[in-house]
């Protein structure tokens, strides 16, 4: 049964010539309801008597204001509506209200109608919206009013509605959608600005804000931010103004000036914790729709600039322009996207012009995430109707992927890990888990598995976290999340998650063994051998029939043999028995191959060349398409100086895995060098570069080859050209320094290494740079700095995730020079 709307009291209780205005009441009822029945008028609150009702109904029918469409049911006519408006206006309740212009009521955007009403009338009642001329139907009105109340654009007090400050801001935005004349928009906006301006003038005077740029930014920002949104927690509006001032003072335009939270809190009299909290809320937690970007030239300094502000607008235009240009040119010349070139081009345009040149480093860190943000905006908002929109979508469609791999979040622990000392455990071994969890994954999450297979770990993590928000009890997915964290070298985070999981696990837990494996794996990477071994022992005791249980202990003991966490234990057992048991129980071929590979790695450590090679061959015969197994074999052949066999294997791999041609050929060139055949190696490099003329890594590699061939000028020229091309690339400076070292030009090398550190403090090579810098200082006779940098290099080497052999080499090199300095 439909709910009947009844008129407000002032209508049915008002009296005209001591009588109720029955005509008005009946017409109101039929205007605000689709139709009414006889009984609707008879019952409370109207309570018409039979005779009165009969009299007025018949009168209205005779005047053609209403019709009886079935027995006992009535509807209003067009004439009736007109009559209703006439009566209403004589009653005065419409007359005193302002109503939206036709341009707004032309469309049924009821939210806009309501907003207009509450903005342009001090208060409005429910009936004001129900009644003509608005005549919003009951259910729509209820829905829309609720929506505005929830968004805090409107408030209700004593059954009356009024606008909030947020509502006023929204009102200004809303007006822009309509074709109102310019002056009326400005008039509307002026009202609001006047109010804020009055407060702002006082604030500037009280706190001596004189800089016009700051004043302008402040006003521009505060007009868009509604104090009412935080009013309930931040009762003092001046504190709110101070927080905005803090953001405005630390704008990149102010560089090198900067005011810290502490200094600001003291100077402007606000609690530092309060300031810090609301800055976070506004900038990071987006409590307002205005977005702030941050630039951080050092950990303790953060500059803020807002979306659509002058700086961001110009930055956006420059960035979009370069991305469009590169997209078109790359298509024209069939080239791949080169994120470094894009970043470099944008940096060249903005540094020294839009931003102070000294902010170049922080801008370099900022740009990848900013470009991704622009790409997401295009992806999410552009409707592909117009040609221009389609072009935009094409231009930006690859940008997320192109910049994904360089996102700061992604790189954060890629090389340095989360601990002081990190040990690399081959992550290909994590694939041992796959057959045991894949069957438990829901279809949706299998998409996430394909991201893992494609090594797109950042995206995979994002996808898992999204799913876990709604399905937090999905234990399998939690395990997969921990595994992805391991792939990203975020072992500390993985361990936090896994330790929680272990608390939940019991023998019935279907994937308990996976949890043990991952926890042991992660423990090894932080050197916690005892815990890893404990877990290995425990899971064998708990699930002796599971292949992974034995693989867990086998892995722990094999890696103990490699890293010698516990030398005594390493002497007595390096995991071969456990690995054999795992092999006997394992039924998945890819897993058997990985177990053979692990066993072979342990045997390599024990210098058992023959068996090590045999096991790798067995692994390859099981899964001939798995490149990791072949790479493992190249390591063994390299270790035992079996160069001709290694060349043969690399040729075989080139046929099987043409997608990694570049890596394989670079390796091949290095083998020729070890064989003393520099010409053959150089030829390989040259041919490769001919195929990929724009490849800067290859050009840098070629510079090294000139160096090997003692062609000093060519080597230096090539690397200098690369630096000229990418002045922000720390790796090129590192290579430059290395080549200079070879020619004993230590002073120049020091400068190059210092520049490399300045540009790429988180680069994969930076631990080597520190050690090389230390050696240069030693050769220059500055032993104090030499010791400092050699030790620093050792710390970085310990932290970094790199091949263990490589790590050992650099640690030994650093130690040799330290010993030499000591014994001098």
């Amino acid at each position, binding site marked *: 049964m439909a709910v009947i709307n009844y008129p407000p009291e002032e209508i049915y209780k008002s009296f005209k010539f001591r009588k109720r205005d029955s005509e008005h009441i009946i017409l109101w009822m039929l205007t605000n309801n689709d139709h009414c029945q006889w009984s609707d008028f008879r019952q409370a609150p109207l309570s018409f008597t039979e005779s009165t009702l009969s009299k007025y109904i018949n009168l209205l029918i005779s005047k053609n204001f209403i019709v009886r469409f079935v027995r006992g049911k009535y509807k209003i006519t067009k004439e009736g509506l007109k009559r209703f408006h006439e009566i209403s206006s004589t009653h005065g309740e419409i007359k005193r209200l302002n109503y939206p212009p036709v341009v707004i009521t032309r469309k049924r955007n009821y939210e806009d109608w309501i907003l207009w009403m509450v903005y342009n009338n001090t208060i409005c009642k429910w009936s004001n919206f129900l009644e003509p001329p608005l005549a919003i139907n009951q259910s729509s009105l209820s829905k829309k009013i609720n929506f505005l109340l929830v968004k805090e654009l409107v408030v209700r007090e004593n059954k009356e509605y009024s606008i909030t400050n947020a509502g006023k801001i929204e009102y200004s935005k809303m007006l822009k959608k309509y074709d109102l004349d310019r002056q009326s928009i400005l008039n509307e906006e002026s009202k609001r600005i006047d109010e804020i301006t009055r407060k702002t003038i006082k604030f500037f005077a009280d706190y001596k804000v004189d800089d016009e740029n700051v004043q302008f930014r402040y006003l521009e920002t505060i007009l868009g931010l509604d104090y009412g949104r935080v009013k309930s927690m931040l009762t003092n509006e001046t504190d709110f103004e101070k927080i905005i001032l803090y953001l405005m003072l630390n704008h990149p335009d102010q560089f090198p000036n900067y005011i810290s939270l502490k200094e600001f809190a003291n100077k402007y009299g606000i609690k530092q914790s309060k300031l810090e909290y609301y800055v976070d809320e506004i900038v990071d937690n987006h409590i307002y729709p205005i977005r702030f970007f941050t630039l951080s030239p050092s950990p303790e300094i953060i500059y803020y600039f807002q979306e659509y502000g002058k700086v961001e607008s110009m930055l956006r235009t420059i960035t979009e322009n370069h991305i469009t240009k590169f997209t078109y040119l790359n298509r024209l010349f069939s080239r791949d996207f080169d994120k470094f070139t894009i970043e470099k081009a944008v940096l060249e345009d903005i540094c020294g012009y839009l931003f102070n040149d000294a902010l170049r480093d922080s801008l370099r860190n900022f740009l990848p995430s900013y470009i991704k943000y622009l790409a997401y905006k295009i992806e999410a908002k552009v409707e592909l109707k117009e040609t221009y929109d389609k072009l935009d979508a094409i231009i930006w469609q690859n940008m997320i992927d192109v910049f994904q791999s360089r996102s700061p979040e992604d790189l954060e622990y890629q090389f340095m890990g989360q601990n002081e000392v990190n040990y690399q455990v081959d992550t290909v071994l994590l694939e041992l888990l796959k057959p045991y969890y894949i069957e438990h994954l829901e279809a949706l999450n299998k998409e996430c598995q394909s991201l893992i297979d494609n090594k797109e770990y950042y995206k995979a993590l994002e996808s898992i976290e999204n799913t876990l928000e709604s399905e937090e009890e999905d234990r399998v997915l939690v395990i997969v999340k921990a595994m992805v964290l391991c792939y990203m070298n975020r072992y500390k985070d993985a361990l936090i998650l896994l330790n929680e999981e272990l608390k939940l696990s019991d023998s019935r837990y279907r994937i308990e063994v996976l949890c043990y494996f991952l926890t042991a794996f992660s423990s090894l990477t932080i050197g916690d051998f005892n815990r890893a071994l404990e877990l290995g022992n425990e899971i064998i005791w708990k699930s002796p029939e599971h292949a992974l249980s034995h693989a867990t202990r086998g892995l722990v003991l094999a890696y103990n043999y490699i890293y010698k966490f516990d030398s005594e234990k390493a002497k007595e057992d390096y995991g071969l028995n456990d690995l054999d048991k795992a092999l006997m129980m394992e039924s998945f071929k890819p897993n058997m191959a990985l177990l053979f590979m692990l066993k072979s790695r342990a045997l390599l450590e*024990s*210098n058992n060349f023959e068996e090590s090679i045999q096991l790798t061959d067995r692994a390859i015969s099981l899964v001939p398409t798995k490149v990791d197994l072949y790479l493992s074999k190249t390591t063994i052949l390299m*270790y*035992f*100086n079996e160069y*001709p066999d290694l060349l043969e294997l690399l040729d075989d791999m080139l046929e099987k895995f043409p997608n990694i041609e570049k890596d394989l050929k670079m390796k091949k060139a290095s083998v020729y*060098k*070890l*064989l*003393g055949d520099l010409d053959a190696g150089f030829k390989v490099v040259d041919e490769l570069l001919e195929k990929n003329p724009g490849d800067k890594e290859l050009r840098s590699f070629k510079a*090294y080859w000139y*160096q*090997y061939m003692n062609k000093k000028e060519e080597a230096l020229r090539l690397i200098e050209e690369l630096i000229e091309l990418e002045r922000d690339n720390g790796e090129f400076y590192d290579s430059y320094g*290395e*080549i200079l*070292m*070879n020619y*004993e030009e230590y002073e120049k090398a020091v400068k190059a290494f210092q520049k490399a550190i300045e540009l790429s403090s988180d680069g994969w090579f930076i631990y080597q740079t520190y050690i*090389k810098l230390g*050696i240069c200082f*030693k*050769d220059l006779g500055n032993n104090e700095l030499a010791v400092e940098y050699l030790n620093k290099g050792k710390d970085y080497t310990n932290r970094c995730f790199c091949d263990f*052999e490589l790590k*050992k*080499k*650099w640690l*030994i*090199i650093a130690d*040799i*020079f330290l*010993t*030499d300095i000591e*014994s001098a």
Partner: protein
Amino acid sequence: MNFSLEGEPEKKKIKIKVTVIGDGSVGKTSLIQKFTQGTFKDDYIKTIGAQLTNYKAEIDGYRIELIFWDIAGQDDFHFLRPSFYRASRAAIIVYSLEENDLGRRSFEHITKWYQDVKQFCGEIPVVVFANKVDLIEEQSLDKTKIQNLVKEHNFLGYYITSAKTGQGLDEAFNDLIKGRLR
């Protein structure tokens, strides 16, 4: 002349840096280990980067401290060569007598290693150790090639050695030291 506390004339101390070079797995580390510690391990343990070994002895009234810089044959640290070779007072180039690719290559590369010594150390005494004699029939060994090479580059000499048996080691190292002292 300096005198020790006991009243005996204090012997002159001499520190000599000796660079040991040659292809990977020709036995450089084993030779040094056998000479300095008298031990030999059959397993091949690859030298990573480089290795320093100290050896102290009294020869001809001198207190000699030898510091062997055993540089990995794989030559990964090309740019470190100047630093590795710096201040070397003598060099040992090791090759293997094994009758296989590795042995043949290691002989062919002697000249390359010598060029490095010359480039970074100038004219210092250089000796060649023809190692792993225990793996071949010594009687059938053709020494002409190595003799020609020694003559061509004016090496101090060459020695047939075995890190496993210790053959030729004392003579080789002592000659090198004395050569250096002269």
